[in-house]
């Protein structure tokens, strides 16, 4: 596996992936809890919910998330990009602590620490699984042949 390093711009895209998803989810939650309970017998109510302001804002943020997510998936592995989405939970908790001045329990600080270490683990590693190209496969076969010939002599 070759070591694929990321550019500053690519880290910025991963930052957008981390930020837009939890903010979008929070808007969706705010919108959905203010609606009457929806049953499976009336699935049309779910579609109507899409046009309420909080749900619409949540969807706009999630579209931003999806565009950045697709871009990230085009140059990095799924298992590399996914921890970035989980890092969004840390960003929201830090917003809550330092912007909204909410109290954060010791358990939550442990959670923040574990996610940060987990994301750090992945971010320090290669971003993409190396696939053998026809040229590299041919070269590997030639090297193998040469080794076998050498052993025969």
């Amino acid at each position: 596996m070759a070591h694929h390093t990321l550019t500053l711009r690519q880290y910025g895209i991963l930052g957008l992936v981390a930020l837009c998803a939890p903010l979008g989810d929070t808007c969706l939650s705010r919108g959905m809890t203010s609606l009457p309970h929806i049953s499976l017998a009336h699935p049309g109510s779910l579609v109507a919910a899409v046009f309420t302001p909080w749900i619409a804002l949540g969807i706009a943020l999630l579209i931003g998330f999806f565009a950045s997510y697709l871009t990230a998936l085009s140059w990095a592995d799924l298992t590399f990009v996914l921890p970035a989405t989980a890092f969004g939970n840390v960003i929201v908790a830090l917003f809550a602590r330092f912007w909204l001045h909410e109290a954060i329990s010791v358990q939550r600080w442990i959670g923040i620490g574990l996610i940060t270490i987990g994301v750090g683990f992945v971010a320090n590693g290669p971003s993409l699984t190396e696939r053998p190209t026809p040229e590299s496969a041919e070269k590997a076969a030639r090297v193998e042949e040469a080794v076998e010939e050498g052993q025969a002599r």
Partner: protein
Amino acid sequence: MTAPFPAAHSGFWATTGMIAAIILTSTIGEVLTAAAMKSIGDLDEIRAHSGMKGAIRAVVTCPLFFAGVSFLALGFFSLLFALNHLELSLVAPASASLTLVTNAIAAKIFLHENVDHRRWTAAVLVCVGVYFLAH
């Protein structure tokens, strides 16, 4: 401000079913989307070569992408349905942390990604971290 319609208490199996539906549809959607994006290639390079329209055309003409988006849409409506019945502090971390593990397994099996010790450790650390964050 409290919500006019607070989340009701659903039973164990109903809660499990709602979260399982999100995890299953999201995992299938994410694996299909990742496979589509790998088959398309680096979007930054495509955009540099053919412009933004070229990049959008490359994405929207890939059938695998639409299969992935269909499952992600199912996952989205499962999430909306669950949020209508359960609290965000339960639904978001439970689905996010478990999806992380199911995605790592699916990426190894179906996308043949090199999920090495580093990535397994990260998946477990993030999963436990999300659990702690939710409690």
